[in-house]
């Protein structure tokens, strides 16, 4: 049981968290009487709900692991088992060192107590002594930026303020392992930045963090590794940008039958099939070399067969010059008729950070004209390359207005921008600066 072993007894090479073969089945009784009968006499008056199935992973010291998954995938159950507030049906989780957790926002704090009382109570709950809380009190309040509110009842705080105070208290105890369930999604942008900084600082000091977030960008930005859960099973683990691609697919790939495009024939193709079959059974000659980074999903009854970037003169280019005008051409081929489709154009950097995202529906540019079955044509998007030098990836999407994806091709084309001597190396964008010294 991971209660609070004394901190500092952790060997440096030992992983901070080892989760081995954890399964969790919730027993669901239709009423409490049957639960009592079961516990007294044994038997099976309950139904079981399998929340986790054989989940194993390791969190090395000094690393940040992001947990992704749809609602009900088992993320919170897993965190609670690691934190020790819930038992596993089989398997076990071992945590080296002190754990601090925010498992649900603002809770754990008493709504009627003042902010000040909650800080003390929270600190004591996390294993600090009164003197230690007193010593850190000012820092906690300063971090949460709630100096003027600490004598008000906690329930009068806004949810963002509650989140800030909870985060400040949970991180002040300097745990070896910090568990955050959605703790970063509340709070304004400024506080999110501060929280990220604190997490990075934790990491630098060799602490480990496990966090759940629905924000793909924050997972990509701060995690070393990501784990994707679906229906209680770990379906992917590894590089955050690869795992978030898969997560994206999980979220949007399933086309609800009722949402199929109006002119489409009534016989419904098995939706998952084209996704699973991958690229192998698609013979079209693809002029651009296959990008190993590419991740593709969608119905693909109408698909983007090719993505090319051309210059002003219509000549395909390998590398782009900053501030020049270019066009990106999607060659779209329709196996079946469809209308109302929109295209999207995203640019991400090598870390997976989305630098630019645009789609024709949201931008008000409207939809593409209808496609007849068997038709093939090009769609052009003009853009000015306001990027600084570097390697970027283009993602091209083709979707119905209801978000049903026809074809999503993450990182399907390279976008390499030549060095811009005028700019610092680390900048991402080129803001086309002009300079005047009015006194000169």
């Amino acid at each position: 049981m991971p209660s609070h072993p004394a901190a500092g007894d952790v060997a440096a090479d030992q992983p901070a968290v080892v989760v081995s073969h954890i399964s969790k089945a919730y027993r669901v009784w239709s009423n409490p009487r049957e639960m009592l009968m079961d516990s007294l006499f044994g038997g099976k008056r309950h139904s079981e709900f399998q929340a986790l199935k054989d989940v194993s992973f390791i969190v090395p010291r000094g690393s940040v692991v992001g947990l992704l998954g749809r609602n009900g995938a088992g993320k919170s159950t897993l965190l609670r088992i690691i934190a020790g507030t819930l038992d596993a049906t089989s398997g076990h989780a071992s945590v080296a060192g002190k754990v601090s957790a925010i498992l649900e926002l603002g809770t754990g704090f008493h709504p009627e107590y003042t902010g000040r009382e909650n800080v003390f109570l929270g600190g004591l709950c996390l294993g600090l002594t009164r003197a230690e809380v007193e010593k850190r009190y000012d820092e906690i309040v300063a971090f949460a930026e709630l100096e003027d509110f600490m004598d008000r009842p906690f329930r009068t705080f806004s949810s963002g303020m509650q989140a800030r105070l909870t985060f400040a208290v949970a991180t002040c105890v300097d745990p070896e392992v910090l568990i955050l369930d959605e703790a970063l999604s509340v709070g304004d942008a400024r506080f999110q930045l501060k929280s990220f900084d604190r997490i990075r600082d934790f990491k630098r000091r060799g602490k480990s963090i496990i966090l759940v977030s629905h924000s793909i960008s924050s997972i990509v930005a701060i995690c070393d590794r990501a784990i994707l859960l679906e229906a209680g099973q770990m379906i992917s683990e590894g590089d955050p940008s690869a795992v978030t691609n898969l997560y994206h697919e999980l979220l949007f790939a399933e086309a609800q039958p009722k949402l199929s495009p109006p002119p489409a024939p009534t016989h419904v193709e098995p939706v998952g099939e084209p996704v699973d079959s991958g690229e192998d059974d698609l013979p079209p000659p693809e002029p651009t070399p296959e990008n190993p980074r590419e991740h593709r999903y969608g119905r693909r009854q109408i698909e983007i067969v090719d993505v090319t970037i051309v210059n002003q003169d219509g000549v395909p280019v390998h590398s782009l010059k900053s501030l020049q005008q270019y066009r990106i051409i999607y060659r779209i081929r329709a196996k079946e008729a469809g209308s109302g489709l929109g295209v999207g154009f995203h640019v991400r950097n090598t870390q997976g950070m989305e630098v630019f995202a645009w789609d024709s529906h949201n931008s008000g540019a409207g939809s593409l004209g209808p496609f007849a079955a068997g038709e093939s044509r090009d769609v052009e998007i003009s853009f000015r390359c306001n990027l600084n030098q570097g390697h970027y990836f283009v993602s091209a999407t083709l979707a119905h207005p209801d978000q049903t994806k026809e074809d999503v091709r993450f990182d399907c084309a390279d976008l390499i921008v030549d060095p811009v001597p005028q700019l610092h190396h680390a900048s991402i964008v080129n803001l086309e600066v002009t300079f005047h010294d009015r006194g000169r």
Partner: protein
Amino acid sequence: MANSVIRVLDLPGHVQALLSALTQLWRYRTLTLEMTKRDLLDRYAGSAFGAVWTFLSPLLISGANLLAYLYIFRIRLHPGDTGAGYAAFVLSGMAAWMAFSDAVGRASSVIASNGNLVKQIVFPSEVLPVKLAIASVPTLLITAALVVGVAAFTGNGSIFGLLILFPIAFVLFMTFLTGCCYLLAAIGVYFRDLKDIVGVLLSAGLFLHPIFYPPEAVPPWMANVFLASPLSYFIWCFRDALYYGAVTHLWVWAVAPVWSALSLAIGWRTFRALRPSFGNVL
């Protein structure tokens, strides 16, 4: 069933449980005291006198009892007793009873009512039942102080009883009470009806324990009922300490520590065994 009998008699396990209980409780002492303080303050939050009620309430209840035995009920322990002797006799038992029913009455729902703490954060839920036991201490001490006053007036009690026997009885009783709270708190999570069952038992229990009955007036069957309830031994201990001021039955003082240790060991082990799955039902 046989299994659980074996576990009740598992002595080495009990000793281990007692040690682990004591170390854990010591470790979380600050938190426990803070939670107790909150508990006492919260109970009277919003009332004009606030925390003063913590002391006022047992004082008034015991005072009302005292007046009733002096002027309403005509029960006398011996010729020459004005009623004050009987009042001291009853109140010495009532002290333990009031503390017991205060803590035990709330124990079965303490985990559920602090569900947010138990479920959401890494919180040592072991402090919750203890906080109930400690929160009953003011009631116990104030009633005891009243008994000491009345007993001094009637010529009962002794310095020996107050300084030696009372601290021993107090420690034994608190240990016993903590164990009861652990047991009820753990089972109450799964069996919510326990709160109501305990409530009924507590109202009936007042008359099934050696509180009101002068020693000569106890019917034989009732004497057996007394012996069957562990709480009786602590009531007798407190009565020895506060009213008689001497050890009247040595065997009572020998049995009470056994109940204390057994209660804490079983309560702690039950709690620790069930605690990991609290999250399933909260």
